[in-house]
């Protein structure tokens, strides 16, 4: 096996163990192990990028042979994998680097770095595997790492609950994926991702079953990538350390749903599941973008924006443009990592104050961070020449050209609104006066090496990568890319964004009275409430799981178990006592009774014999 591939496969886990064990002896060692391993992984990915861009690495291996079946485990690294690898390991490396200061005070660093490395291992496994089973393994590894990292501060009730919620929501989707694996084994005879695409292109698959499988896989993707209706976990996941949010819930793990759809793009296209993908994603994009408008916590705003942008990428895939979707995935990963890490820096500076309404005026204390955040925000908003502009434009264009009305409308609204909430966020953090005494007073100074450097790199990349947008597209998709062209779209979008931008500035910087009047209207407050609570989807799911699953189904089963099944078992004791009492009546201890019984017995025998004799 190729050395670089071997390193990518194994190094994260060895690193995780080492980081934990060495970190237990000396705390800083955990960081250095993680940093080195993260660097090695990124280097290995670069090696693959430079050496294997012409050929595809294809390794096949049988993991389990049982009965008449074989469960394969293969490695398949093509351009798509390499791009994902670069994103995962590159951002992973920077994130670890950033954590040096951000997590510097935490006594549990060994645990932290071990989990992060384990997570990166899962992500790598997902993107380089050839089979759906390998993908599922990586998928679940990430799920576990995400769960453990969200609950990293397990002693906080909210963090513990958020972790549980994240695990169960994603698990809900994963179960469908597991079912999809089993179905594929039976109906397609393979779980090989490459072969599935080939079979789809050749039309060898039963269409109904393939549609079911595709939808099941998409259910997994919905869970993992925070789409409607399984998104609330993503918002609560912000309870974890911000570095975790940046890496896992902003830049990498949440992309895995998009990746798996992209990887099986031909299969999805064949089954016509893309139609559903596009519509679900458009709805999610709308929900995410609107909810992000009214959130208070910085990280929640970013989380909703993540959801919305992931959906935009999904829409790209859904309307049939692999290029648009993947391009947006890559761009989004970079600027979202930048924004999250920037938010991390802000939180670090402001003594772990996350409420945007309590921050403010930080541009004076942290100008560089403000600048980098601004670059990230512009990219997210889709302002040229930042990278976000190109990919978002492409998705919207694709939606206009190939999507239905629903998709078109909702994705456009979502794309336009991104400037609103990100501007609002930036203004609340950096402009005006400090609204909270802690923030106003002494602040943590972000260090150049550990905080500004990674932010700077990301800010640079998000700008610089604009130059190679079409190269990336061609690198991933390979063949001729059919680029959507919608006349006047760019102008429409930019105008729309400008108007929204002005409204936001008017509202939050100038404090226009008219706007306040609108905002305080009862109807608007109701809307605000709905948006703030993420359309009450979380409340609904919680209600269902609490009142239907636990308190109706499980409780009734428990009742049945104790009062019917076990009742019968325990009641046998009483029944034997009843029978005993019945029999006991005949045991008076008087010899006369016994003689009577004796005669009865003799009579039974004799009568029985007489009857038999008569019959003879």
């Amino acid at each position, binding site marked *: 096996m190729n050395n670089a591939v071997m390193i990518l496969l194994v190094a994260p886990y060895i690193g995780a163990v080492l980081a934990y064990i060495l970190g237990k002896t000396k705390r800083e060692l955990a960081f250095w192990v993680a940093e080195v391993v993260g660097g090695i992984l990124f280097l290995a990915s670069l090696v693959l990028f430079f050496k294997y861009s012409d050929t595809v690495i294809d390794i096949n291996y049988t993991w389990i042979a049982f009965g008449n079946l074989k469960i394969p485990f293969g490695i398949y690294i093509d351009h798509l994998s390499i791009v994902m690898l670069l994103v995962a390991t590159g951002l992973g490396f920077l994130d670890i680097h950033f954590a040096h200061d951000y997590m510097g005070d935490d006594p549990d660093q060994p645990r932290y770095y071990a989990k992060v490395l384990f997570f990166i291992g899962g992500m790598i496994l997902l993107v380089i595997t050839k089979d759906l089973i390998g993908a599922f393994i990586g998928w679940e590894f990430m799920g576990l790492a995400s769960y453990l990292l969200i609950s990293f501060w397990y002693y906080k009730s909210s963090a513990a609950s958020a972790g549980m919620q994240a695990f169960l929501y994603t698990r809900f989707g994963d179960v469908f994926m597991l079912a999809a694996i089993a179905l594929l084994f039976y109906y397609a005879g393979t779980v090989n991702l490459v072969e599935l695409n080939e079979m789809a292109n050749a039309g060898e698959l039963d269409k109904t079953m393939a549609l079911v499988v595709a939808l099941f896989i998409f259910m997994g993707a919905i869970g993992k990538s925070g789409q409607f209706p399984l998104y609330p976990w993503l918002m609560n996941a912000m309870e974890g350390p911000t570095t975790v949010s940046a890496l896992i819930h902003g830049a990498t793990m949440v992309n895995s749903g998009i990746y798996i759809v992209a990887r099986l793009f031909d299969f999805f296209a064949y089954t016509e599941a893309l139609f559903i993908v596009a519509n679900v994603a458009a709805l999610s994009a709308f929900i995410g973008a609107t909810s992000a408008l009214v959130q208070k916590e910085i990280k929640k705003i970013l989380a909703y924006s993540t959801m919305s942008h992931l959906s935009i990428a999904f829409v790209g895939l859904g309307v049939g443009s692999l290029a648009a979707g993947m391009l947006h995935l890559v761009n989004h990963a970079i600027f979202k990592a930048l924004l999250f890490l920037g938010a991390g820096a802000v939180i670090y500076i402001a003594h772990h104050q996350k409420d945007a309404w309590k921050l403010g005026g930080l541009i004076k204390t942290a100008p560089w961070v403000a600048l980098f955040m601004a670059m990230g925000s512009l990219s997210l908003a889709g302002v040229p020449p930042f990278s976000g502009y190109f990919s978002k434009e492409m998705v919207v264009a694709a939606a206009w050209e190939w999507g239905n009305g629903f998709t078109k409308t909702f994705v456009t609204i979502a794309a336009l609104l991104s400037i609103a909430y990100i501007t609002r966020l930036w203004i609340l953090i950096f402009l005006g006066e400090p609204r909270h005494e802690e923030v106003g007073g002494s602040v943590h100074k972000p260090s150049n090496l550990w905080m500004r450097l990674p932010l700077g790199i990301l800010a640079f990349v998000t700008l610089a990568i604009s130059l190679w947008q079409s190269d990336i597209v061609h690198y991933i998709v390979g063949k001729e890319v059919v680029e959507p062209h919608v006349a006047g779209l760019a102008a429409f979008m930019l105008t729309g964004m400008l108007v929204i931008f002005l409204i936001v500035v008017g509202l939050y910087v100038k404090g226009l009275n008219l706007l306040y009047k609108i905002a305080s209207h009862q109807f608007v407050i109701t809307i605000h409430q709905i948006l703030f609570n993420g359309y009450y989807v979380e409340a609904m799911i919680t209600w269902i799981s609490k009142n239907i699953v636990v308190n109706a189904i499980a409780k009734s089963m428990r009742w049945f178990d104790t009062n019917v099944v076990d009742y019968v078992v325990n009641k046998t004791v009483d029944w*034997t*006592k009843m*029978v*005993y009492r019945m*029999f*006991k009546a*005949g*045991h008076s*201890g008087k*010899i006369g*009774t*016994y*003689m009577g*019984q*004796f005669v*009865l*017995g*003799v009579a*039974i*025998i*004799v009568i*029985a*014999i*007489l009857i*038999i*004799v008569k019959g*003879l």
Partner: protein
Amino acid sequence: MSFIVLIAAGLLVPVFYRSNIFIAKMIAVAAFIVAAYFIYTGQSLNSVFSYFVMDDATRLMEFVLLATLAAVSLSLTGFERPLIAQMLFLAGASLAFLETNNFFMYIVLFEVIAIISYILVANIRNFYNAEGAIKAFIAGAVASGIILFGFALFSFTTDSFNYTDMNVSGKFTLIAVAIMLAGIFYKLTVVPMHGWAADAYSQVNHAAAAILSGVIKSVVLVATFKAFYKFLVVYPLATVLIFSFFAILTMTLANFMALWQKRISKILAYSSIAHSGYALIPFAAVASVYSYSGILYYAIAYIFMQTSVFLILNDLRRELGVKYLEDIKGLYKKAPLHSLIFTVQLFSLAGIPLLAGFLSKAVAFYAGVDAGLWWIVLIALLNSALAVGYYVWIIKHIYFDEPNNNVTINMSQGSLIGQLILLAGTVYFGIVASDVFSATISL
């Protein structure tokens, strides 16, 4: 020869009652060993009278019987000494009972054993003993009358009393046999002729109860099976109906009765009655080749375990005054050896494997299945599972509860040797099944 040795020893033993009970015991044990030797060499009653025959099965049963009686006599003490001579007579009568092939002798010896059993229970020390003894006696007297009535009827219809030559056809015979069986059921404590047994077994001296419920019942089982075999085979329908009915009735009633008793002796008494129910299954299954193996195995296993539990209870009652279940709480601390042996023998009664109780049930019940009575066997097995309830409940008191006082007792050497003999029998016949089968079925 063996018969003479036993009777002679029985006459000699009372001489030493007053002076040295140890010598009396040794004489008895020696007599049992010598008798066993003569049986081994073939010089039992069969060498003198033509209506006694010796075969492998009889010999095996006789060895087991003598070993058990030796064990019992070793563990007797004090006022129980009259039992030694009575056991020697009982042994002599039992040998004749087992060896006979003449129906007339069978009836005579049945009465002899009945009389010995009245004498056994007549060792009266208190009111309860007296009550038990009287009940046993009156019930036995009625039963004897019925048996003799049946026998009188039977004697009109047959030319010969030899088991092989008996005339078994005719409606009259059937009725005669039925009446005789009714009497014999009394001795086997079959419900509803069991009323006396539940009281007598639990109220007379436990050593006597051990002989009564363990030894005598087993001997009667085997001898009766041999005596009635020909009738049972000739009237299959009546056999299956009557014996299945009484088997189920007996075991079910006895098990439910035992389940909620508080007196240990009463539990064991009802357990003994329940076992009679199980033992009727091979009678019902007489069509199977395994029925004789089943009954013999059952008798052998039963004689060891039932005797043993009553003897231990006798020890406990004497040393600790144990009567009720509460009295044996935490017994494992007070009397570890008693507890262990008691537990093993109770497990054997319950039908736990590697003990004779299991294999005997397996063989006896298989005979039932072999004869096509699988549903009766199923009921019997469920009954035996029910029975485990009260055996385990005794064990629960012994091991799972804490004692209410700190008295500890040791087992006397005589008891220990006696118990080890019985335990060896239980374990040996629980693992090795070939002896019984080679004695009853020739390949």
